[in-house]
């Protein structure tokens, strides 16, 4: 049973960790891009 749990836990944790990292980077880059866009709109 421990081998089965290990296989599924490693998969779930790795996919979750990867997904969270990419999602956070996407959010940060989107925020940065949005703030640049509003700077240009405000200051020409």
């Amino acid at each position, binding site marked *: *049973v421990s*081998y089965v749990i290990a296989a*599924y836990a*490693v998969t779930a944790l790795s996919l979750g960790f990867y*997904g969270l990292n990419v*999602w956070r*980077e*996407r959010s940060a880059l989107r925020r*940065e891009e949005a703030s640049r866009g509003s700077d240009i709109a405000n200051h020409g």
Partner: protein
Amino acid sequence: LASDPLASYRLDSALERGAARAAGPVGWLLLVLAAGYVWTVVQAPIDSVQGVIQKILYVHPPLAYGAYLGFVMTAIGGIVYLAQEREEWDRFAIASAEVGILFCTLMMVTGPIWGKGTWGRWWTWDPRLTVTLLLWFVYLAYLVLRSFAGPGARTARFAAVYGIVGVLLIPLNYYVIEIFDDRSLHPDNLESGSLGEGMGLPFLMGNLTLFVAFVYFFLLRFEVEGLRMRAALRLSEERS
């Protein structure tokens, strides 16, 4: 700015806008499927020969199919990039390779766990395992190349050709068991009807869930690649 390789990038393509819009619904679908997947694996019958460890079947092959998909998509991105010279297809190839290597790595982690429980050892130089390791190294090298070489058409063209050549290992990886029939320790490729009663649904759910997970991660990563490129372009414009 004209000499800057980033200046030639065409950004915000319809392909990238579509990917960004699709990510949200695909993410919600993934959550629903993941719950069903866990339920079907828990409920799946215990194999009479291998015992409970056979349940790794519902995660190990689906990870392998995800790896294959990622590397095939890398090659497709490369082919379209070489044909059309549109940079979003180069970014498509990078995102595919990264998600493909993630799935390939997990396939190579879950496989030895299964092997230790059934064969009594983590690794053996079996033809399937050896070719899988080679496939992993080929696409790891692809990502290392991309991270060190920087942007530009020359790198993209080289990477496209490399990705296309690398994908030739996939049919070898799949059929190597049949080629080395009597020398392979790895179980045969699954065929229709080869699963026991009650094992079809968890296997289907495993494939479906991990396929949707692949798509979701690819969509996120593909958008990130475009966002990174735009951020680099802005930085380049500010400096010039």
